């Protein structure tokens, strides 16, 4: 029977179904919104409909993400750190260093190359440099967050953001626009600022990253500008899976399968 993984994040609620061999057979990503219980139900219903299943046809479910304890019918709740590590192993086997930037948290994880976390670091109290930060900056630039990724192509890199506080950075972006700075340069500055902040997290678990197999997951990995900027900061190549948002939910589904099959 299939297995279900549900990742309840601050911005999106992701659900993944795998078969009993661990093959991905369906997924969905829905906005979490203000009522996460409704989003959880919607994500579950959507993904099951896509693969032609009902709840009774699911063998086991693992929940992850900040809302993991609110998912009913779960076999267990597992943190997104463990789930992303397991998920990336399925999508990009042998990953040794994983950066996951989600809606309100950034994490760096040193993995053993087999999908297990050896060490991790998370952002401090402040959510600067996460998905919510990018959303606020896109709003200040009056563009969609999905458009940010390639806007910095060809930029010279002559704009530096001096504040990473979401509120102050938004004001700074508005000021830069008023001063006539190119949008591409502002976006490059934003991406570099996020990369530099993330670099500090990476260095806490991997003082040297040369030679490591590095990947990025989470919604912000959809932004190629951030991935490029982080790659430049690390002087390393960073791989991203085709669907970076669902890595946590996939990991959760795989852990559900492994736990169910162990018993």
């Amino acid at each position, binding site marked *: 029977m299939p297995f279900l993984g549900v990742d309840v994040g601050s911005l999106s609620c992701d659900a993944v179904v795998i078969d009993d061999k661990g093959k991905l057979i369906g997924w969905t990503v829905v906005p979490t919104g203000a009522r996460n219980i409704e989003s959880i139900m919607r994500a579950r219903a959507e993904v099951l409909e896509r693969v032609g299943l009902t709840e009774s046809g699911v063998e086991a479910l693992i929940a992850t993400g*900040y809302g993991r304890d609110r998912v009913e019918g779960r076999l267990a709740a*597992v*943190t*997104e*750190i*463990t789930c992303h590590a397991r998920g990336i192993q399925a999508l990009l086997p042998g990953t040794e260093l994983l950066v996951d930037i989600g809606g309100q*948290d950034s994490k760096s994880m040193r993995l053993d190359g087999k999908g*297990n*976390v*050896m*060490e*991790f*670091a*998370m952002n*401090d*109290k402040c959510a600067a440099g996460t998905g919510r930060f990018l959303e606020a900056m896109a709003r200040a630039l009056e563009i969609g967050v999905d458009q940010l990724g390639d806007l910095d192509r060809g930029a010279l890199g002559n704009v530096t953001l001096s504040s990473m506080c979401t509120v102050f950075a938004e004001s700074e972006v508005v000021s830069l626009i008023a001063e006539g700075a190119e949008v591409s340069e502002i976006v490059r500055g934003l991406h570099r600022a996020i990369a530099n902040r993330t670099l500090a997290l990476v260095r*806490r678990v991997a003082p040297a990253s040369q030679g490591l197999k590095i990947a990025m997951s989470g919604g912000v990995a959809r932004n190629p500008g951030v991935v490029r900027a982080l790659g430049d900061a690390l002087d390393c190549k960073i791989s991203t899976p085709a669907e970076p948002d669902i890595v946590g939910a996939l990991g959760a589904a795989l852990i559900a399968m492994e736990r169910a099959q162990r018993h």
Partner: protein
Amino acid sequence: MMLEYFNDMISGIEAKQELGKSSARSRFALELAHLGRGLYSRDGTVAWCGILAPFDLLHAMGVRSCFVEFVGAMLASTGTIGPMMEQSEQLGYSTDGCSYHRAVYGAMAQGLMPEPDFLIGTSAVCSAGLASIENLAGHYGKEMYTIHVPNDDSSEAIAYLADQFRELPHFVARQTGRQLDPGHLREVVDRTNRMRELTLEIYRLARQVPTPARRRDLANFGIVSALFLGSPGGVEVVEAYRNEFAEKVATKNPGLPNERLRLLWIQNRIQFTNPLEKLLEQEYGAAVVADELNDINWDPIDPEDPFTGMARRALSVSFCGPAEHRLQVLTRLARDYQVDGAINPCHWGCRQGTGARGLLERGLRDAGVPTLNLEVDCVDPRNFSEGQLKTRLEAFMETLARRKSSWLN
């Protein structure tokens, strides 16, 4: 208000004791309540102090003494700290500062600090503590004696600190009109040494696998029991702990049934009620078995030369001296208690708590002990992000659960 609180606490604990419901922790709480009542009752000499003040020496001179951080911890644990923090902010104290000390300023402004007769500041373990003492001295217009704590434990440093402790009774005598009685000091030092001996036994028992200590049994124990040093009540407290732990070890009655993970807590615990330690126990079988400040690394005090022994004792505290000293203490505790991991709360606003965190993390990692750095205000619950902290702790437990213990052969 606070006097009433301590009186209620004393009568509540004593009523339970009469019903035979007593534990070492409740005996500890009773002694704490007696101290609180003594400070707030206004019928004796009171001194607000820095953490490294020689409390047994002050006890020998009939002074009710306490470190100021006690107030922040007490207000946090009783859930009454919010208005004090707001008051301190209204007074202009930065929210980036340490909440232990900001709570003192708020309580001072609201008239909830017992008025001291004099103050004794210590330049270690932190400058914010010394600043609090200076502020209190200015606010109440009282005399202050500052003890300069050297940054190493060389023989010169010990002599320098001992000289200041030797001078202290003269300052106290000028404030109180009471001279130090050498015979009484000798009795007090004897009790201090007895407490040291018993406390070493408590820690030896607490190191057992599984530990006999329950979740909060030894929370704040080392730092607070320093306030009882040399007192008859202090001896009773440590005797109660020693007896309770010895019985639990003998009868194989662990503090946490099915203890699976053993943790070292760096610096202070979170002082306000929160679900995290219970979560660690219930979901992961993880017990905080060791605390950085529950440590005795000083020799018995020579009654013929008590000031030198007190100076050595003060300088042995992990926070004194270079960060390497602190790392040595933590590494020793990690090894002695066979811990699987360490948690550093990195108390918000505390330079002592956060300044060396990278060094401690790397040093403990080299010793085979992973460390989780939290970002938590241990005193002000208004800054408590339960979900974020829970994710960090749970992920750490998931990681530890897969690791092989560094202490297994």
